[in-house]
């Protein structure tokens, strides 16, 4: 299958500071990439650079054969980059359903399909964005990103700060989206072992550069490989 996303020599940061340097990788259509690393190594910066909200220093981002590097965040979203931010960023003054329809774009994902994926959102469809629990907000953020019918889905720590039961529910949904729906995705997550089973490849960042790029299975199968590369002790 052809590469959907190609990142070449990408450097970016905030203002004059450089946070990621000469990063390169590619992602095939329908593939999923686990983006791993300790806090502060540049994972969120890499996602933010893909959506276009960091200070661009150099390199090239190609999505589905088109160079999206010079595009604004708005145009990148319309080019097919869906984003689930770490902060969720739900529109508090809109209801659940309004949050979904406000940004809807034509395609297979519509409100009914999002409700099918997250029945809990259907129950809360008339509630305002600020009346939702953290887990519901995360479901809404994910559903909202799907509503733009993206070619590439970026998820920034989707399991962060959620109760275990909600984590399991979200993981099941993520697995369905990535495996069954074959959505191309990049998932940043601290709980690496939760997402590695359903991602094809993993990228580990260390001080803004790539320290490991390879199959997710390799990190899972080799005893201690993941912990050694992340620089943490196995729990």
């Amino acid at each position: 299958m052809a590469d959907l996303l190609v990142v070449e020599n990408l450097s970016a940061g905030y203002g004059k500071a450089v946070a990621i340097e000469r990063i390169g990788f590619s992602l095939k259509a329908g593939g999923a990439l686990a983006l791993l690393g300790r806090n502060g190594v540049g994972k969120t910066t890499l996602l933010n650079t893909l959506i276009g909200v960091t200070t661009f220093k150099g390199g090239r981002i190609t999505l589905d054969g088109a160079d999206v590097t010079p595009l604004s965040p708005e145009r990148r979203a319309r080019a097919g980059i869906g984003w689930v931010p770490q902060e969720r960023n739900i529109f508090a003054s809109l209801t659940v359903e309004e949050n979904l329809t406000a940004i809807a774009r034509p395609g297979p994902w519509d409100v009914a399909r999002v409700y099918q994926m997250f029945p809990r959102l259907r129950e809360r469809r008339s509630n305002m964005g600020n009346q939702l629990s953290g887990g519901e907000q995360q479901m809404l953020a994910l559903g909202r990103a799907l509503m733009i019918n993206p070619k590439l889905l970026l998820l920034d720590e989707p399991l962060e700060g959620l109760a275990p039961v909600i984590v399991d529910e979200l993981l099941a949904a993520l697995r369905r989206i990535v495996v069954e729906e074959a959505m191309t995705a990049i998932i940043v997550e601290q709980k690496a072992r939760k997402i590695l089973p359903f991602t094809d490849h993993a990228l580990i960042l260390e001080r803004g550069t790539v320290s490991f790029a390879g199959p997710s299975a390799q990190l899972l199968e080799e005893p201690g490989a993941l912990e050694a590369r992340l620089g943490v002790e196995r729990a």
Partner: protein
Amino acid sequence: MSAPSRAADQSSGAIPADGGVLAHTLSRPPLPLAAEIAIWIVAVGAFFVVPDRALLLNEIAILGLFAMSLDLVLGYAGIVSLGHAAFFGAGAYVAGMLAVNGYATPLPGLLAAGLAAALIGFLSSFLILRGSDLTRLMITLGVALILLEIANRFDDWTGGADGLYGVAMDPVLGLFEFDLYGHTAYFYSLSVLFLCVLVARLVIASPFGLSLRAIRGNRLRAAHLGIGTSRHLVAVYTLSAFMAGLAGALNAQTTQFVSLEVLDFHRSADVLLMLVLGGTGYLYGGLIGAVVFKVLQTLISDLTPQYWQFWIGLLLVVLVLVGRDRMSERLGALLPGRRRGVEGDPA
């Protein structure tokens, strides 16, 4: 600097809210349908209760439309303006000049005036896409001042400081003559207001309207989700200018006079005051604000013709310091029914 880096300069770190502080402060939840129907029953019924005040009712309907047009940009898109009179005045002058030059049929004149105001709104909308509330206040104020000076300068067309005389309108739909008492004028203005509210309702309930509220919530966040923020703001600003132009045209056609006052700063300030009184973001705030403003103005100016502005100003200060919600809650608690309800509450 490339596009990504420009965006980053605005949003590195936490993404700031950019929906306008004033818009958030004044925002109110939508009215239930029953309340909307009641408002229209009262609006029609008012004519039969006080037929001798039809001129005042007409003025309220026009100001209500003008205030609703500002609500579209302030309440739904978070754009604050101190120069909305630019569109009101443009509509008034176009309708007036058409009538003076022999094109006195009301509806085509109304439409032409709205379109002329919309054109000005479209062209000036690009100026308000960037910057903060303060920037927008100054830009919108500046546009209104420019139009005021243009109207003053081209007095051969506009009548300048003397105003535009000789505005005589044909009957509405060829059937209803304008009368001295404002009877036709009120129903004409009320009909246009009703149609505009219907259109505005459709617009704000559409995905476009929801996107506007998302932009008001956080413009950068909306852009990151693919909402064309600039296009949306240009579109709603143009629509708002169209409706303000209609209000101005109604003013010219029903009063049959246009002066520089239609472009004056106080018009823009008054309409903003009406929204402060009535609230934003539920369409009827402008209408309610216009009723409160005009009734207070009429009552107070009857009592003290020279100092009515003092009392309106005092009300505004109290309203801002105490807060409309707290005032209405306390006033509501004084009502007998409400008191009984409180006292009867076992809790």
